[in-house]
């Protein structure tokens, strides 16, 4: 059999494009994530699912076999917050008219709004006008398989994104997307609705902000979100009463914004500073919504982990680490906090790991393989164990979104999302050899020219 393998491999080379229904990777190191590392073993994939994994697993007859000697197999990486698949939300485009940065705009006029929203002519006069609210939108319904970022991100080892319709205040619900090359978006969707994306703005700051639409101050955003959840509760009550007996009862007015909120099983709230973590955790508790916080720029501070631990909510840590200002004004007095953000920011994942706070890492607008690789490496260099980094990009995000029964580790029965490397993942010289999504094989794209397509937010979840 051993002698047959090279021959088989030769035979099968031409068949790669056809994606055989059964394949096996033999003699590879397998990082299952859910169990111990298998130093030399086999993964069998059939019909896009992992059929078997182990040291002594038989290769089924007729399977396309890959000799994994010298290679390591990992579960496909999951980007726990992304806009990949929705080209109109790609960072450079969204940032174009807004000073070059910022993923979305609260002002609907400059938002690449989904087809379902019409840009309002008059500014919103209050929560009743449902400003910047497309809560009913599912990312799955906006996915375009043609998004060029799909291939780029996949080349970095990401087989899955949790893609959010990140526009406005209530953006809509995120979807778990497998990055297969598909003709139709439906083939990519793993779970269509995993949680409502919420964003806030701190407003213009100072004493400005007269006359534009509601809301325009941070406290206005919070009041608006609070009113929406109060309205949703009331709406539900009226709807249920009406369903029981419509006779003699004024019919409740249909409200898609509230429908979208009621259909969301959790919310995602932005929090970068410790003050914001405290504020948003309290807020979510008040709203009685399970919450995932995203951003986490100050999660390195000693106050952060105990606070997060107390509430037990999982968090998504942006890998868009703070960087020194380009061409800084030498006269400018930089705050100690901003210096610490740069110096200590990437140590946050290691500290959260130590404290036992469930966290996943996310790309925050980066879509170039080199940038993503470096960003993860920074966290590892700042103390995060490699296996913990891998978990924060595989099984933990799967657990956070409730999809660990189908992805996030190399286990029989799970979706065959795999990354095959020569060398350890996230090492500087490691090559990704191939990527499997839903059992379909992809080769990493040739490294695109540097400098393109990077446009992360300054403040995750904060509309500039």
């Amino acid at each position, binding site marked *: 059999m051993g002698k047959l393998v090279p021959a088989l491999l030769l035979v099968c080379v031409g068949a790669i494009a056809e994606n055989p229904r059964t394949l096996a990777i033999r003699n590879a190191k397998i990082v299952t994530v859910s169990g111990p590392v298998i130093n030399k073993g086999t993964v069998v994939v059939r019909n896009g699912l992992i059929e078997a994994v182990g040291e002594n697993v038989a290769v089924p007859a007729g399977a396309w076999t890959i000799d994994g000697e010298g290679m390591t197999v990992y579960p496909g990486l999951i980007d726990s917050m992304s806009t990949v698949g929705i080209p109109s939300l790609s960072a450079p485009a969204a940032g174009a008219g807004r000073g070059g940065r910022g993923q979305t705009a609260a002002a609907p006029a400059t938002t690449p709004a989904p087809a379902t929203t019409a840009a309002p002519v*008059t*500014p*919103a*006069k*209050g*929560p009743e006008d449902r400003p910047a609210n497309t809560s009913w939108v599912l990312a799955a319904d906006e996915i375009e398989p043609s998004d060029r970022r799909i291939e780029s991100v996949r080349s970095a080892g990401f087989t899955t994104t949790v893609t959010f319709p990140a526009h406005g205040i209530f953006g809509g619900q995120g979807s778990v997307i497998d990055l297969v090359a598909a003709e139709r978006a439906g083939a990519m969707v793993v779970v269509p609705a995993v949680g409502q994306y919420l964003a806030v*703005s*701190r*407003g*213009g*700051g*100072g*004493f*400005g*902000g*007269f*006359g*534009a*639409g*509601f*809301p*325009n*101050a*941070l*406290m*206005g955003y*919070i*009041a*608006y979100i*609070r*009113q929406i959840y*109060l*309205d949703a509760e*009331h709406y539900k*009550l*009226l709807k249920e*009463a009406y369903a029981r007996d419509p006779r003699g009862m004024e019919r409740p007015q249909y409200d898609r914004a509230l429908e979208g909120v009621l259909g969301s099983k959790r919310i995602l709230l932005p929090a970068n*500073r*410790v*003050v914001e973590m*405290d*504020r948003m955790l*309290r*807020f979510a508790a008040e709203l009685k919504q399970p919450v995932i916080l995203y951003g986490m720029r100050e999660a390195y*501070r000693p106050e952060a982990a105990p606070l997060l631990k107390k509430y037990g909510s999982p968090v998504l840590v942006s890998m868009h680490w703070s960087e*020194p200002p380009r061409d800084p004004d030498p006269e400018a007095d*930089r*705050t*100690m*906090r901003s*210096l*610490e953000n*740069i*110096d200590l920011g990437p140590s946050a994942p290691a500290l959260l790991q130590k404290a036992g706070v469930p966290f996943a890492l996310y790309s925050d607008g980066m879509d170039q393989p080199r940038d993503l690789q470096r960003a993860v490496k920074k966290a590892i260099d700042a103390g995060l164990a490699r296996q913990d980094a891998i978990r924060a990009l595989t099984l933990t995000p799967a657990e956070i979104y409730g999809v660990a029964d189908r992805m996030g580790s190399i286990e029989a029965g799970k979706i065959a999302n795999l990354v095959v490397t020569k060398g350890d993942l996230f090492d500087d010289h490691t090559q990704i050899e191939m990527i499997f999504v839903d059992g379909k094989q992809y080769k990493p794209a040739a490294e695109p020219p540097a400098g393109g397509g990077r446009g992360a937010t300054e403040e995750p979840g904060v509309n500039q």
Partner: protein
Amino acid sequence: MKKFWIVALAALAPLYAENIVIQNATIMTVTKGTLQGSVVIKDGKITEVGEKVMMPQNATVIDAGGQYVIPGIIDCHSHIAVDGNVNEGSVSVSSMVDIKDVINPEDISIYRALAGGVTTANILHGSANPIGGQTIVLKMRWGRDAQSMIFEGAMPGIKFALGENPKRPGNPQGGRGATQTAPARYPATRMGVEDTIREAFNEAKAYKAQWDEYDAKVAHGEHPLPPRKDLKLEPLKEVLEGKRYVHAHCYREDEILMLLRVADDYGFKIRTLQHVLEGYKVAKEIAAAGTGASTFSDWWAFKIEAYDAIPFNAAIMQKKGVVVSLNSDDAELMRHLNTEAGKAMKYGGLSETDALAMVTINPAKQLGIESRVGSIEAGKDADLVIYDRYPLSDFAKVQKVLIDGRLYFDRDSDVSGRPAKALEKQKLIDKEKQSQPRPAGGRRPVG
């Protein structure tokens, strides 16, 4: 930087939760005269004040020989410690927004206010709207989280604003902060400001009636569907029920009388008039309404409606029976409210005690917290400021500030901690420079 405060406070830890005696000080109690003696603090409260006191066991002694102790200063009008914009200026009635939601306990202005002897401040929404956002009273507990800063049990408030600020966004020419693209917002006149407030309370009354009817039904054992909870009208309902104070920004006598009439028509009280620079013209009417006045000592002429101000405003209102406080409305002015009080002695001839009362017990009364703070009396919170010399003077420097018997500011440790802080910062700057080598050549391109 935070680390340093923690270290600094930790070094002073023996002063926490222990018995403290401040002795040999000149104690200006505000309500019980001035005396030479000691203040005894147990569990955050003042337990004894006098020339001779019972020394509790294991007391930490602060020797304030030659120094002065006054009650913690209370600022009835401040905008510090707010995250994001202080105005929800998009709408004429923004009562749905609440400062409590956006407290920023890490605003350095808190520490600086402490260093100026302020221990409590009324944090207000801005003045962009006839009816603005909800307000909150904070203690300057620097280093604690947002919730821990809230003055427990203090009545919440709401900001109203009259005159130029709330009508400015209605001016199509735009004013300060107005953007070209922003459409004009009603109201554009003082008449419109009054109308906006009346309309809001018409709505609030109807809303209150809905809820009263619902509550009555529930009390009778019925199970009606509740009305919609409206965050804009809830606080106005509370105003009508006397559960929330109104703090109204105003300048001119005519609009002051207008607001007092409106409040009377709808059956609520204006707790304080803020700024109220023409208050001296209608002081009798303000006193008759039972309304407090919180004004500036000598800050005026920054706009047309602030031209008819006089430095005797505070003293005249006080003499006509109005409870008067002096406020800052400004993070810098907040740091020397003691000298603002001193000005009331120069202009208007107030006594030392009456002047000091304008930044201590009077604002406490205006905020309904006078049973807890505002004077040095047994039973009150140990919110105290120690000055190195006579406090109603430009030359006085705050030495120590205690809130609830805890030391939150200590001038000596602040000053001695500065070199270490500067060093730590420089280390980070150097580290950053090293990790970022200048591009080859090392010179910036010309042009």
